[in-house]
Each structure stands twice: as C-alpha cells, then as structure tokens.
C-alpha cells in the first residue's frame, strides 16, 4: 500500500523547508460526471505537520484547492534525521499519515 503523501523536508541554516504533495481527487462538487450527475465534493479538510510533538503547520482546505494538492512552508528548527509527522483527513472521514525524515 503506497502512501498518498509525498514529502520533501530539507534542513538548511536552522530552517526546514517542507514541500508536500498528496494524492487526492479534491472534487469541487461543481463538476458533473459523464451521465450529467453532479460529483459530490470530496476534499481534504485538515492537513497537519508535526515536528518533535509540536504542530508546525496546519492547513484547512476547501474544495477550491487543486487536485493532488501541493503545499510548501518553512519552520525554524529541525535537523537532518529528525522525524516529521504528516497527517490529513477529508470530508468523507478518510485519512492518511506518514512519518518522514528531514534531509
């Protein structure tokens, strides 16, 4: 089972830059399928990053975030080998999480 989460976290000069890509349809709720039926909204609601037990970034997303969402942020601290925990939950209750190592 491959994770829906891809992450690249690089520590440099006391700051860690995190880039993450998540596999998710992020259906807007405004698109119709081939039969003309509205595809219900299906999107990630909360995405959270934790470093050493501390939440370093929280995203609240609506259906206007693009399919297979991408996000980038930076936080102070973090060094090579540290663990970064990523987790998300969507509006249908599905979720995924990943423990990544800072490079």
């Amino acid at each position: 089972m491959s994770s829906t989460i891809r992450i690249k976290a690089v520590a440099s000069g006391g700051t860690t830059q995190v880039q993450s890509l998540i596999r998710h349809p992020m259906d807007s709720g405004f698109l119709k399928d081939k039969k003309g039926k509205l595809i219900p909204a299906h999107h990630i609601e909360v995405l959270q990053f934790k470093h050493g037990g501390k939440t370093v970034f929280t995203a609240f997303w609506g259906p206007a975030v693009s399919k297979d969402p991408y996000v980038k942020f930076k936080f102070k601290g973090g060094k090579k080998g540290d663990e970064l925990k990523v987790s998300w939950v969507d509006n249908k209750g599905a979720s995924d999480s990943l423990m990544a190592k800072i490079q």
Partner: protein
Amino acid sequence: MNEFPDAPDTARRMILKGAVAGGLAGLGFGSFPFPAYAAADAKEWPADAFKQKSEADVLKALYGKTAEASDKISLDAPEIAENGAVVPIAVTSTLPKVTAIAILVLNNPNVLAAAYKIPEGTEALVSNRLKMAKTSKVVAVVESNGKLYSAAKEVKVTVGGCGG
C-alpha cells in the same frame, strides 16, 4: 452493597473499547504501539467560513474581524492563468508575529480557498495551488499581532477550473 453496580462493567467496556481503538490504530500506523499520535482532526475545520460568499463574511467567520490593506504582504500569482484548475499561488509576509494566512478567490462559488495556521517558529510563507472558476481578484489575508491585513491581485483565467 455496591452503590455503582454498573461501574465495573462500564470500566470493562471502556477498556475493551480502548483495546479495539488501539488495535485499529496499530493496524493503520504499523509502527505506533499507542494511539497517542494525534493526527489531523476534522473537528478543527472551519466549516462555516468555507460556505461564505464574500470576503467580509469569510473574515468574520474565520477571525471575527476585518482586514486593512498592507504592502508587507507579497501575493505571488500569475497575471494570466491558462488553466483555472491549477493556479499556483504563494503568500509571504514581513509582518511580525504572523499566526494565520488565508487565501480567498472572490469570484469562486465559495470565496475561501485555504486557511493556514502559522504557529510560532513557522515562517509567514505558504505556497499552494488553487482552482479558479473564472477571472477573479485573489486576496491574501495575514493575521499579525492579532490584527488582519490583506493584499489583492487580479488573476485572469482563460479556462475555468470549477466545472463545465
């Protein structure tokens, strides 16, 4: 006499529930022995803010206040987006003590696209990709020192990204 005849039973049930929850968590997160790993919580999602149709209503729902324009916010978005389904937008700010960043697309069916919490130690910087239904003003809102500031930019969309 036992005044709480149900108590041991309840306790046992709770223990059982805990064991089940722990077992499930164990399945999901293979390497975690305890469900102590606090994951993203959907309860935190500001559902009300994501339903609003205007900038003022979104800010009221999210932060309970209004924003003033600031030149200390940089909103990086394309002048023309050929594909409204994927519009790269980045927000950075030199304002002090930034605690939140929100991005609004005013002509989308629901105005709020994304809201971010910036804890202490995290930079006032976020980059993401949003959908735009049509040409619209994009507004970046930054909470700094408990006050709200905003910057806006018009993005022309040639092919909308919210539906057919």
